[in-house]
């Protein structure tokens, strides 16, 4: 136990400031208003691999590491589409996954957001469309945000996810119109507190 505490103290807090939302990734703006009104930034994401090479999944995993600390932003990955506000979908959508993807979409309660991830999710990538591949995610379900990159870096993923929920100022007074700037301020709290010396020296 002592070793574990020592290691935790030695490691300190590594979380970095979250990037800003990248609104250029937004391809449809049908739902952001509703989502933000309902949830603020407490977002639940269901990730769906619809046929990827697993490269995008590696970077989506990285979002949970201490540097990007996506949970620190109030965003969680959930186990069921029924608990999700957003589907984070990697592609290309294989024809064998098309039905599963559509069912996952249908199982996600409204209002919902869909973010397509990676070159393949955005345009079919190197696999394209074929007897086995339907190509981009938007060919199968409606898409709100597209995050390009092969695979997109964790920073690009965060910028896309944040764009989906903050690109439009919510109309209700519950969240300030400067929600984007607020997100940054919140995140910066995590970035640089010093290591707690008391823990480091604890018996």
């Amino acid at each position: 136990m002592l070793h574990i505490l020592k290691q935790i103290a030695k490691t300190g807090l590594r979380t970095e400031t979250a990037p800003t939302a990248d609104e250029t990734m937004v391809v449809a703006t049908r739902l952001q208003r509703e989502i933000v009104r309902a949830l603020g930034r407490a977002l639940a994401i269901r990730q769906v691999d619809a046929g990827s090479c697993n490269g995008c999944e590696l970077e989506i995993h990285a979002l949970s590491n201490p540097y990007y600390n996506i949970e620190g932003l109030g965003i969680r990955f959930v186990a069921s589409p029924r608990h999700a506000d957003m589907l984070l979908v990697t592609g290309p959508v294989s024809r064998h996954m098309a039905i599963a993807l559509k069912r996952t979409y249908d199982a996600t309660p409204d209002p919902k957001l869909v973010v397509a991830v990676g070159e393949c999710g955005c345009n079919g990538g190197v696999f394209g469309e074929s007897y086995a591949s339907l190509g981009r995610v938007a060919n199968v379900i409606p898409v709100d945000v597209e995050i390009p990159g092969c695979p997109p870096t964790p920073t690009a993923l965060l910028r896309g996810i944040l764009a989906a929920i903050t690109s439009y100022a919510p109309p209700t007074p519950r969240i300030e119109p400067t929600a984007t700037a607020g997100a940054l301020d919140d995140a910066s709290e995590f970035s640089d507190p010093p290591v707690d010396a008391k823990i480091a020296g604890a018996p």
Partner: protein
Amino acid sequence: MNVSPLGISAATLDGVVPTQRCPVNSGQLLAACRLAWEQGGHLTALWLSDDRDRQRGFTLRVLLRDGDGFTMLELALPDERSHFPDLSPIFPAAARMQRAAFDLMGVACDADDQRPWTWQAAWPIDQFPLRRDFDASKSWEPGQEDYAFVRVAGDGVHEIPVGPVHAGIIEPGHFRFQVVGEKVLRLEERLGYTHKGVEKRFESMGVHDAHRLAGRISGDSTVTYAWAYAQAAEAIARCAVPARALWLRALMLERERVANHLGDLGYLGNDGGFAFGLAQFSRLKEDWLRVNASVFAHRFMMDAVVPGGVACDIDDTQAQAMRAQTAALAKEVKVLQDIYDDHAGLQDRIRVCGEVSGELAVKLGLVGLAARGSGVADDLRCDFPAAPYDALPVRAVAHPGGDVAARVAVRFDEIFESLRLIDGLLTSMPDGAVRIELPELPAFRLAIGAIEGWRGPVVIALETGSGGSIRRCHPHDPSWQNWPLLEYAVIGNIVPDFPLINKSFNLSYSGHDL
């Protein structure tokens, strides 16, 4: 393997791993497979090619591996009504490969199990995508198949279907558990969900460009696949790659191994209820990937290995930075290894969990990291060392335990060994060019590329057409051999241990489904 007593002639095939090519009839095919099995060899890959345009019908190729290298047996099949003998009684791993070969090429095997494997109703069952007369521009509305899972009957037995959309952030596949209470009586896998037509796609590309596709067969093994592909292309071109390029490839391959092992060790801790492990290892992995990004311009080093060499180079400052990082990481991982070893709760979860005995591993043909966790020390880098591994011998790692703990131990040992290799590669890096132009490629030539990736041996069988085109490219992931073993590893374990056992193998869906 000496095949001459069987009346089989053998020709040498160009390649880094010694390979002989042997035309056989069906009797000889079975005899050669039996002989290989008796001599400790195993099945590496099996695939079909459509050679009807050259008046040769179809060709079945069976790649065996033993201490001498690869033996590629070639059985000519006159037309689509032909069939080939079932090799699964000798090599159980052949079963799914034979089913997948039929799904894509439409030449049947004499096996009892005639269920589809890769096919899941995305195209009509009487159409075969890898045939040359298949219209690749055609597409069909995805249908639904009714797959005949094997059921277990009895008092209190029930079934748990899982997937293809899983609870975690992992690739899609379906698992059908038959359980009593929490105890798993039987697991049956159903894969093929990520089939995206990779082999057919290769045939629309040129040899010079297709390394990008090869590097995306399984993203976590991009360097491995790209190197295996480049190795095959270079064998066909009969060109020698500059030494510096080989050193850089090995540097990237070992960095890929370390990155994946760091990630897996974190998730194995997490799945064992020890979230501290995930936080620590995912931090180390992130540090590692950031150096990849700064040196190789890509966090996973995609598209860095190209036919003829590598698309990147390093300078002294970068080499020094990588050496410093290597030394620091070794210390950090040692601290975490001690914590893992001393943590009673974690050890309780990973010991005697998901066991695969050495005997079963050999019998069913387990390969790569998982095999080394069952005491089978096969490793292409040790068994057939090619530059730079001939100058920098790899110490084979093996742990006989066969449980999750053994696969954890293999990962720790392989990290330390890879860090040692990285340091050695950086200090012995030869000067010179890092890339040559691939000479013109002769048509109708076949070569095998084989690289020991972090998961196990990846094989690419590449055949050229005219004008630098790809006639056939068959990638083979070690997951083909190891997926069936997962079904055995969970028998008698409890359902909540499945994620842990599954993660300890960490097999590729995309590399398997193609």
